[in-house]
């Protein structure tokens, strides 16, 4: 990371912080008694979670028949939600791994929460295969272990099995990555705590003392994990897309699916990071660490990935026509003008059209608008999966089996329940761990703090030519 920072860059830490203040500010939320807002939010989240648990138990007790899946539409809200959550789980590892490799300093403000969000989203996603197979008590059949059920079990040719490996690998590496980053910060909390709290953080921080050797190993491990995690960012949603694209169902069997699913996943992941960050920075008073500059950068990623997804949608439409294959053509006509046309409209308007406002800096830096857009994008990405799954299945080769599908209250309840799980975990996280990576933010203070960079920096605009290197290293 170059120590020289161009004067054109805006600061990433505002409020003239020093190292101690950073520690104080970021540790504070986990050290004071929970605010009323937190308690109320937590109660709501847990109640919603309870609804989800009830609906899951209902499903297990009475069977999958409590859902409205039918012979034609065998995948409905379950797989839609599964893919949606997996997609959301992509931003964290992208931020922590790929942006680390690209030496993006703004990642330090958001990586911790984004990684936490990733883990919780993957947990929510992993729930669905567990339920939708119908017999949750034999869910261990997923795993390849010596068994008497014959050579086809498990089927290594099935992308559904690859999915199991991809997601469990992704979850493991993301968790390791997240926890590695947490160790020095847990140690900071430990050093400030007393009594039981101190013992708790002492246990979590693995005896971290902040020795030079610790930091050296920490850096090496981060880089190695980033290297491992980078292909994982691509592989997980690629394999999710294989679940569809390896089939020969018109609308599913298309080669652009892998990269386009990955772009869509990053798109929805960043939207969820924004939703959470905008609330978090406000409630926990972290506006100096998660600045408008961070929001601006994330909105750019949203614009980029939203437009990539747009290119992919149009490519699919064009090639469907170009192929001259009537079933492929019909599949897309059906998406645009069929019974579920509204889902297509929702997808196009939320994913491709509306993010285009982020071409304008003014809109990228408008926090209220960004918050609204971040939710809008996730609605759009949910619709995308709905368009791909039930819309496509509703019209198959045999008109006699054409069908329509609306979810039952059980399916809706499970989906809402996962939101409850997600927010419950996130709220606990904000109490237990520093929401912003203390050590990492400190590492950029001297280059990106507002007393060192940007308009108000002490030495800014002091003219010097490139020959005289007056900038401190």
């Amino acid at each position, binding site marked *: 990371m170059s120590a020289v920072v161009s004067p054109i860059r805006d600061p990433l830490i505002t409020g003239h912080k020093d190292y101690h203040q950073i520690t104080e500010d970021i540790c504070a939320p986990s050290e004071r008694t929970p605010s009323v807002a937190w308690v109320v939010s937590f109660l709501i989240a847990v109640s919603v979670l309870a609804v989800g648990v009830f609906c899951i138990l209902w499903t297990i007790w009475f069977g999958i028949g409590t859902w409205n899946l039918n012979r034609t539409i065998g995948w409905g809200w379950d797989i839609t939600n599964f893919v949606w959550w997996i997609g959301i789980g992509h931003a964290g590892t992208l931020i922590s791994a790929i942006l680390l490799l690209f030496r993006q300093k703004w990642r330090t403000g958001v990586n911790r929460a984004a990684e936490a969000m990733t883990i919780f989203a993957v947990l929510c996603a992993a729930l669905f295969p567990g339920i939708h197979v119908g017999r949750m008590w034999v869910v261990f059949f997923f795993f390849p272990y010596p068994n008497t059920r014959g050579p086809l079990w498990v089927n290594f040719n099935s992308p559904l099995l690859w999915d199991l490996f991809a997601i469990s690998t992704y979850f493991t590496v993301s968790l390791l990555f997240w926890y590695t980053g947490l160790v020095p910060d847990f140690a900071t909390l430990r050093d400030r705590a007393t009594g039981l709290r101190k013992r708790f953080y002492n246990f979590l921080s693995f005896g971290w003392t902040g020795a030079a050797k610790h930091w050296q190993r920490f850096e090496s491990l981060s880089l190695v994990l980033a290297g491992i995690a980078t292909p994982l960012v691509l592989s997980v949603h690629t394999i999710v897309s294989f679940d569809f694209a*390896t089939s020969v169902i018109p609308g599913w069997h298309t080669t652009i*699916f*892998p990269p386009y699913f990955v772009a869509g996943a990053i798109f929805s992941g960043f939207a969820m990071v924004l939703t959470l960050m905008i609330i978090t920075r406000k409630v926990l008073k972290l506006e100096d660490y998660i600045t408008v500059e961070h929001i601006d950068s994330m909105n750019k990623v949203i614009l980029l990935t939203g437009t990539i997804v747009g290119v992919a949608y149009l490519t699919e439409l064009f090639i469907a026509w170009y*192929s001259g294959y009537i079933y492929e053509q019909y599949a897309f006509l059906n998406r645009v003008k069929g019974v579920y046309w509204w889902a297509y409209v929702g997808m196009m308007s939320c994913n491709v059209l509306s993010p285009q406002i982020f071409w304008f800096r003014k809109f990228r830096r408008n926090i209220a608008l960004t918050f609204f857009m971040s939710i809008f994008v996730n609605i759009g990405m949910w619709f995308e999966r709905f368009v791909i799954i039930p819309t496509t299945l509703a019209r198959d080769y045999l008109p006699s089996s054409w069908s329509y599908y609306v979810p039952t209250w059980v399916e809706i309840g499970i989906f809402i329940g996962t939101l409850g799980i997600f927010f419950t975990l996130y709220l606990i996280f904000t109490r237990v761990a520093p929401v912003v990576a203390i050590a990492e933010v400190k590492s950029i203070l001297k280059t990106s703090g507002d007393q060192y960079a940007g308009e108000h920096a002490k030495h800014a605009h002091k003219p010097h030519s490139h020959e005289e290197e007056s900038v401190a290293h």
Partner: protein
Amino acid sequence: MNQFTFPSRARVFLMVCMAIGLVCLGITYVTDDALHTRFWSNLLHNSVFFTGIAFLALFFLCANVIAFSGWYTVFKRLWEAYAQFLIVGLVLLLVIVAGLWMHAHHLYHWADADAVAADEILQHKSAFLNPLNYTLFTVIIVGLWIFFARKIRSISLEEENVDKFDFSVHKRKLRIWAAAFLPIAGFSSAAMVWLWVMSVDAHWYSTLFAWYATISWFVTMLCITVLTLIYLKGKGYFTEVTSDHFHDLGKYIFGFSVFWTYLWFSQYMLIWYGNVGEETIYFKQRLQDYPVLFYANLAINFVLPFFVLMRNDTKRKAGSLTVITIVLILGHWLDYFLMLKPGILHTAHEVLGHDAAHHAADHAHGAAEHAHHASHMVAGFTLPGFLEIGTFIGFAGLFAFFFLRQLTKAPLVSYRDPYIDESLHHHVV
């Protein structure tokens, strides 16, 4: 030395390269079959390859401007110079277009009225695949790219004259024009890949194809950047470019070689798994009649860079970088060869087969007959021959000659770019 002067020895050398190319093209034309298939396909192959490289230089430059990237600033003139080659690319492609209208070549199955009349699929596609569309898309889209290449270049040069802490040109002009180019490039490049490359297999289609072909260009562009920097440093220029810059370029080459493989695999695996005849024909043909190229493509463009560039030191040393980038440029050139030649040869067979009586004695027809037997080689198609390599040397010479001339027109390092200090102090490790 911030002002590049084109050494006369290099000038002569590149002119000799171009002469070799011309001679090879001439020999190809004379010794070719009745349709001059080999000549035209070599022309298309190299024109598309180098035009795409110039386009990707512009695209990546704009992407870096928008991403507020700093490290590349010291050598950004290179990418500006590569991008200017789009003008030459347009001229070269207009030769193909002229050939299309004059029925001088049969590169595209869809351009033969007889073939279209007898083919329902081609009739359906003729709304997109027709000479007028081909011409308009080529002229308008490449014209648009040229416009942006010149615009970005002129704004970048305008920065030379501003005060060091006056960012208005960068903020108000460069970023806006660079941002405007990205979506235009993103949407239009796919259409060009479909028309120029994918439509040689006029029946076949793949949604991923455009992105796959684009990444192939991109890796080549990065390799050419590395080679140019090594050459210019050797001549005493770009002393500011350090092994840290090479390290990052090496990382890009490594990363995007893996990404290229990812796209290759996604396309191949999904088509193989789906096992739909209309799609698998593309790979079946290549596996059966072009096995050497098919596997060499993967070995050169994935296995080699993956193992060579995995280490830190190989990304920082001129020796290892020179070897791997030359190999990769050839590898991606072969990739385009493999994308284009089988479809073109197949079209030629069809055309020649139609009036078999006419060309019964023609040796190309003989080759056409034999090509149906898997093991038979067709020079210039199954594998590139000396003529193809010579033609490539000619085009590479043209590309180098053109961009080196562009480099003489402005200071090599832009000391007025707001990010220049970051680039001058770039440290990776």
